[in-house]
């Protein structure tokens, strides 16, 4: 019971984290390109674009970070069996994630948010590129850790735990590299469709600011085109990788003979049930249907750009708007397929999930599950409402980069007492 609750807790927090991280990673490159163009050309429209999409980026970042904090601690809280068994192999990549990725990202994001006007604009743009590099470095290290769980290479069993033998093998793990390619594709798709979808809404409502949203639409569609093309190209190789690393899961999702795969697993690992839950097939189908749409139609959004059709054709605007949530659904479905498909293992072929749980009572896990879920769901709802409002209000409602004197104008008695300059 405690085991199922701990698994549910991990699934809820990771899924929520992933939802927000997909947008962070997808918006990042678009903002970096936009701010770089501002640094080079000095055109005000690029600055306004950077601030508008940047404010959405920063608001979205909030949930990614607070839920992500919990994930970092959850291994020790709920899965101390895993840290005991595989900590020597699995720990370094998690630690590298915090040091070379998250630490850099956080420090520079603070500089970026509060450093507007404090430094030359090329340096400010460069700061954002570092934030972006930190985010993508996180993807790499997290997937090194996760790839190891799915396909434990570079290690050898020594007594009751795994010892690290080849760190290079951990870094070039096919389970890691294939996942990185696929996730980078889906986040580019998600970021591109988000930007083009929000821009489409503004054209549909006729909110003005035509130049800003026309440029946003173009860059959004280019990213969606790239991501859409890559998502299917990187998707199919996943199947070969799964066939090689997790044969029972492959049989379960790809019309294979699950019983034969189960019999083979019994021969390899001894008696036991090695089949993942049946519903991952539905999860896989959800992802692959969405993937197939992009496989055949990834080029369609480029057509919308001809003669700026997207500014006038309502059906184009409507299409782009309803596409916003689609990559997020696919990302969660794909993640569930990968992680649940590994079951009953936590470290494939080495350690069962049931043997990795901390010796804590079901009541304790249940209490924290309810607490985490209630708090994070409430915060996620508030965060999405704020993102939607910021997106609807458009660039005029943005405060990112504004000075204190501009957002708290003199008028209220306490504001008037503040000194102008010290």
């Amino acid at each position, binding site marked *: 019971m405690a085991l199922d609750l701990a698994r549910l807790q991990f699934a809820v927090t990771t899924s929520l984290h992933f939802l927000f991280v997909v947008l962070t990673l997808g918006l990042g490159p678009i903002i970096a390109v936009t701010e770089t163009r501002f640094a080079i050309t000095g055109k005000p429209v690029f600055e306004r674009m950077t601030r508008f999409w940047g404010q959405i980026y920063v608001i979205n970042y909030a949930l990614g970070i607070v839920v992500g*904090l919990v994930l970092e601690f959850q291994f*020790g809280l709920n899965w*101390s069996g895993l840290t005991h068994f595989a900590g020597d192999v699995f720990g370094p990549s998690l630690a*590298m994630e915090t*040091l070379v990725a998250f630490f850099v990202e956080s420090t520079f994001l603070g500089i970026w948010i509060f450093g507007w006007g404090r430094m030359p604009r090329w340096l400010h743009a460069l700061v954002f590129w570092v934030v972006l590099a930190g985010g993508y470095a996180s993807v790499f290290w997290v997937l090194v850790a996760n790839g190891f769980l799915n396909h434990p290479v570079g290690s050898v069993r020594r007594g009751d735990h795994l*010892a690290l033998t080849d760190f290079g093998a951990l870094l070039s793990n096919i389970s890691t590299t294939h996942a990185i390619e696929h996730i980078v594709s889906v986040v580019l798709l998600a970021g591109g469709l988000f930007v083009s979808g929000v821009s489409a809404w503004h054209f549909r409502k006729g909110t003005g600011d035509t130049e800003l949203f026309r440029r946003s639409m173009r860059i959004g569609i280019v990213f969606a085109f790239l991501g859409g093309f890559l998502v299917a190209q990187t998707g199919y190789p996943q199947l070969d990788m799964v066939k090689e690393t997790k044969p029972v899961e492959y049989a379960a999702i790809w019309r294979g003979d699950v019983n034969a795969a189960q019999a083979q697993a019994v021969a390899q690992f001894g008696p036991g049930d090695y089949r993942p839950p049946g519903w991952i097939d539905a999860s896989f189908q959800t992802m692959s249907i969405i993937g197939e749409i992009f496989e055949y139609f990834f080029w369609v959004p480029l057509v919308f750009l001809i003669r700026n059709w997207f500014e006038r054709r309502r059906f184009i605007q409507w299409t782009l708007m309803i596409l916003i949530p689609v990559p997020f659904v696919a990302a969660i479905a794909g993640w569930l397929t990968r992680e649940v498909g590994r079951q009953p293992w936590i470290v494939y072929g080495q350690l069962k999930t049931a043997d990795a749980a901390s010796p804590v009572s079901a009541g*304790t896990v249940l209490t924290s599950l309810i607490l985490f879920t209630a708090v994070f769901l409430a915060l996620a709802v508030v965060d999405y409402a704020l993102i939607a409002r910021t997106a609807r209000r458009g660039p005029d409602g943005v405060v990112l980069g504004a000075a204190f004197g501009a957002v708290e104008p003199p008028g209220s008695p*306490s504001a008037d007492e*503040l000194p102008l300059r010290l």
Partner: protein
Amino acid sequence: MDVLWLLVVGLLFGGWLALDGFNIGVGLTLPWVTRPGAERRLALTAVGPFLLANEVWLVATAGVLSAGFPEAEGRVLSGLYPVVAVLLVSWAVRDAGFWFRSRGVSDTWRRTWEGAITAGSLGLAVTSGLVIGNLVGGVPDGRPGIGILDPLALVCAVAVTGLLALHGAVFLGLRLPVANGAAASALARRLVLPVAGLGLLTVLLALPLGGLARPWPALAIGIVALAAVAGTGRALAAGRTGVAFTFTTLAGLLTVLALGVGLAPGMLDQAAAHDSLRTFGKMALPVLPVLLLMQAWLWWIFRRRVDRDSVAFF
């Protein structure tokens, strides 16, 4: 190698207590030292650039602990499960408060999220104090619920909360415009004596109730930390807020140093395998000075007091 990694863990956790400590302290004292409205937002602007850069030290602590001392990490976190769970929720609530407070304009909205900042900060302060207090009792053995709320841990929780409130009030006195920081400095002066008293009580209780492997050096460092609190009082009385802030920072760092020295033998027994530590060391150690330089650059950019030209986001 394992001693080096214990020092890194100590540096990261000490860095967190000393740095995020003042974010927490600002959250704790916010309702009492700032007037609602613009002045309160100015206080959020004062800590704004540091929030992310400071809290990340605790994430890094957990990360390095999982690589260098995986066994200890599992035992401490699952052994102190309820405390850590409340710590994490408080952390999320505090951050959400900062992020959301200025996204709405109604008084109710702003009061609600200011309340979240203060409540989250209180939760963070108390739970980090409880974690420290429990560790003074020795590294947990992984079974939950052992003495989580014993008298030593409770006194330690109150003492740490007081220290962080003092630290935050001193920071506001240092970074708010002089006129707006006066109330924070006044509160800081009033807090010195109670904090020193609670610290002394913790040190005295640690003698009979603590389970540190090496208690005497730890106690000596604890006394130096108390001296730093006393130094804060003198600096504040002389109107030297910068010196006072140095003293409260030292008090935070010394608290963790005392704990680390006391726990060292038990921790070293639980270090990761030598090969893992060496691989990790080759990658991570060269990065540490770069990280410290990045943080130094952040401090350099935002070294002055806030004013109307400061960028406000929170």
